[in-house]
């Protein structure tokens, strides 16, 4: 028997394949592309060429984009440093602050569930600059305890770096409380907001952070461009990691990616206007997907907090199913998995394991990333297909066989809770 016999669901009107992996990237909005095209063509000038109209045209466009990006996050234009993306922004924030911190000993605080673009720079400053690193754990919801953070801060702490929203489980950390605690001790705060900006309202002033990493392609902008927000008042001391022509207030040298920056600006402007409406729509569809999966399958568990969560994220573990097998069977649906087999590492998702979950639950995790383009028909198609594939894979699993007592399945519950 083929893995997945065709049924009625295939007749639902959707365009295949369906993209539900918006934490990886999002589709470039056609309006963004339109804004970019002239800067890939006739307006090819270098924004640093101050002496002729070609340069002026480029500089004008960059200024406008800087304003658009600043407006989206409640910053001033002069606080936006354009980079190649959130990974570079994270590197600049962490390495830049630690390099500027003359005093030793030196210490920084981060969280175990951070993206590798934060964890790896932290590891490097630890190994190469002798900066001690505290990696805070999270509770079963994926949240850190701000009290624990306060307790971790020492007189030597140079930086606190906590992500605004997690890339796997979509959990939103209490950044305002974290920043308040750190600021009370005079410690600057960085947040990797790549997954949050443009998808949910983020105001750097309200959050009280000093540094924030932003990415264009997570909000329907182009790849290869991002920004680091750098607070002007009581500015954190920051040393550039890329030296050269002194662009971007001397913090990031290199000829500006004008078309990319223009696209970033346009994507930010669209998000500023359209976010409120799309957030509710996306959350409703995400909840619909969750309800459908739960009603059709037993042994389904949500990874991460239900409430402190990005509206477009759903991360679910399906008992007795390997995530990579599920992804391979879902040949016309793009989602991601925490299974080691689906990644470059040999270990299933460290983020899901940080919740206190077993390796089995981590390898069974599947991440759905909706976007403003997701339709109800797509959600219904995905829910139906995932449910059928999960049932089929459980049918194939000797574990389900060995542990199931026809119908009622306490072993599955035990498996999921890590008992």
């Amino acid at each position, binding site marked *: 028997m083929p893995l997945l016999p065709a049924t009625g669901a295939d007749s639902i009107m959707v365009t295949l394949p369906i993209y539900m992996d918006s934490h990886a990237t999002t589709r470039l909005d056609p309006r963004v592309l339109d804004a970019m095209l002239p800067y890939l063509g006739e307006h090819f000038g270098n924004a640093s060429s101050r002496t002729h109209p070609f340069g002026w045209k480029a500089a004008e466009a960059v200024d406008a984009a800087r304003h658009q990006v600043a407006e989206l996050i409640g910053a001033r234009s002069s606080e936006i440093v354009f980079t190649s993306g959130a990974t570079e922004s994270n590197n600049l924030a962490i390495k830049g602050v630690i390099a500027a911190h003359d005093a030793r000993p030196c210490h920084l605080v981060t969280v175990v569930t951070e993206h590798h673009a934060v964890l790896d720079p932290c590891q490097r400053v630890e190994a190469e600059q002798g900066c001690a690193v505290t990696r805070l754990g999270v509770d079963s919801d994926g949240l850190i305890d701000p009290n624990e953070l306060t307790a971790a801060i020492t007189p030597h702490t140079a930086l606190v770096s906590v992500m605004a929203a997690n890339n796997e489980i979509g959990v939103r950390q209490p950044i305002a409380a974290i920043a308040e605690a750190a600021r009370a001790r005079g410690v600057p705060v960085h947040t990797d907001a790549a997954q949050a900006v443009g998808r949910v309202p983020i105001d750097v002033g309200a959050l009280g952070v000093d540094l924030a990493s932003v990415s264009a392609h997570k909000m329907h902008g182009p790849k290869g461009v991002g920004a680091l927000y750098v607070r002007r008042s009581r500015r954190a001391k920051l040393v550039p990691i890329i030296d050269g022509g002194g662009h971007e207030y001397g913090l990031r040298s290199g000829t500006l990616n004008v078309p990319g920056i223009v696209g970033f600006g346009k994507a930010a402007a669209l998000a500023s206007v359209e976010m409120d409406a799309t957030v509710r729509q996306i959350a409703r569809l995400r909840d619909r997907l969750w309800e459908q999966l739960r009603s059709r399958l037993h042994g389904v568990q949500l990874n991460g907090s239900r409430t402190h969560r990005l509206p477009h994220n759903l991360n679910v573990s399906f008992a007795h199913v390997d995530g990579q097998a599920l992804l391979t*069977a879902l040949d016309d649906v793009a989602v991601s998995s925490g299974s080691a087999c689906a990644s470059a590492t040999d270990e299933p998702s460290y983020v899901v394991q940080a919740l206190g979950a077993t390796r089995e639950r981590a390898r069974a995790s599947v991440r759905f990333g909706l976007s403003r383009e997701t339709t109800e028909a797509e959600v219904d198609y995905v829910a139906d297909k995932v449910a059928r594939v999960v049932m089929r894979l459980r049918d194939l699993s000797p574990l389900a066989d060995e542990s199931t007592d026809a119908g009622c399945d306490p072993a599955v519950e035990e498996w999921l809770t890590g008992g």
Partner: protein
Amino acid sequence: MAERTAAAGGSASAERFREARHAGSMPAGAEDVGTGRAEAPRHGDVTRLQVRVDPGTGIIRDARFKAFGCSFAIASADLVADRVTGRALASALEVTADEVGAALELPAAKWYCAELAYDALRAAVADYETKRDAQIET
């Protein structure tokens, strides 16, 4: 989630996985059925393989598997089941893990999936032989 290096995509193993034809089980207690189970503790994968042997001719008439693991583990078990069906029990173990891994174009990191399927087959053959020999003795 890091980039996929071991993606199955449209590969031979993905094809085999999606079109798996030997999934299922047979009564383990039956006299003509041999059941084998193998685990890869480091990865948590489990493969069970069963063979039904014609006692007169010694030919494997049917082979069924159940597997918990990634698409590579499932594809490997299906291919092993496919290749031993119709073979004489005596030559069943000539279907090697290397042959399965090569046929499915498994990435090096997934070679253990083929070995897992082979280990399950070896256990299934041994189980059948034990049953058969016990019958002869009685």
